[in-house]
């Protein structure tokens, strides 16, 4: 695992509570806001299970800690998106909170129901970018959620040991978290 330069993290009184909100004007129209919220709630909860940090969605975008939007090409942050595939999304290191996804992609909630060869799993990318929002950089471990590349039509949402070690070194461990549960899932992954 790796960190951003200077190892930035969210500095809050414990228990750390971070808010998130969706842009009112920069979302995608072929996935309902309800479904988008469900996907992101699941993605945030994966990280909340391993560290003592909670995430709460709020309505007011400007005041949220984490601000999520879908954008085409140049969207004003000096890192323009590039159309179909290529760069899928990016997020900023703590405590910036900006979280941008490329609106040119074919975002999928369920890869079984979408035929496109360029479909990208929204939950996988959301889970990865939340790692950046928390302070993790890219990992060299191919199975890790924080590995930089994601093949189209691929789902990768389960945090691996590398992801958990990295984020717990920043925020500590969620008291209810057991590594055994993670090892069990990794073993099943390896068997697969």
């Amino acid at each position, binding site marked *: 695992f790796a960190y*951003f*330069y200077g190892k930035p993290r969210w500095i809050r009184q414990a228990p750390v509570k971070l808010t998130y909100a969706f842009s009112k004007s920069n979302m995608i129209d072929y996935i309902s806001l309800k479904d988008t919220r469900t996907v992101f709630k699941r993605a945030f909860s994966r990280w909340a299970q391993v560290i003592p940090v909670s995430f709460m969605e709020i309505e007011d975008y400007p005041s949220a800690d984490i601000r999520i939007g879908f954008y085409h090409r140049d969207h004003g942050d000096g890192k323009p998106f590039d159309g179909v*595939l290529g*760069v899928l999304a990016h997020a900023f290191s703590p405590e910036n909170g900006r979280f941008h996804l490329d609106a040119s992609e074919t975002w999928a909630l369920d890869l079984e129901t979408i035929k496109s060869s360029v479909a990208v799993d929204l939950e996988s990318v959301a889970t990865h970018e939340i790692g950046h929002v928390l302070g993790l*950089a890219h990992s*060299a471990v191919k199975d890790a959620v924080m590995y*930089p590349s994601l093949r189209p039509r691929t789902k990768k949402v389960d945090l691996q040991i590398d992801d958990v070690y990295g984020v717990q070194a920043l925020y500590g461990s969620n008291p209810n978290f057991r590594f055994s549960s993670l090892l069990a899932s990794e073993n099943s992954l390896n068997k697969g």
Partner: protein
Amino acid sequence: RISPDSSSTVITVDSYNTTTWHDFTRFLDAEKGSRVSGMSELKKYFNRFGYLPLPDTDNLTDVFDTQLESVVLAYQTNLGLPATGKLDSDTISMIVLPRCGVSDTKTHDTRFQATKR
């Protein structure tokens, strides 16, 4: 892929491979010291993800030079690939994959800097 019943070589291109970065497949096995048209675009790719910090990318050459070789080595290390310094198939296959826009290494841009532990 070479189809068994024909003399010609059938190149299989994944349909999604007609998008960003697919052209980089033509650098497969390019030799160090060689000049390949468009290699400056590959250097821009590496600049974008933090491997080739430059004030500007207007004067990049198409030569597979020593600097690019060390950039490829750093990329292979960061992506858990065999560290050959060559544009081998493992490396090219990874380069053309879609990815996150956050850079992989330290850059002069503090928002996207990263360091390994």
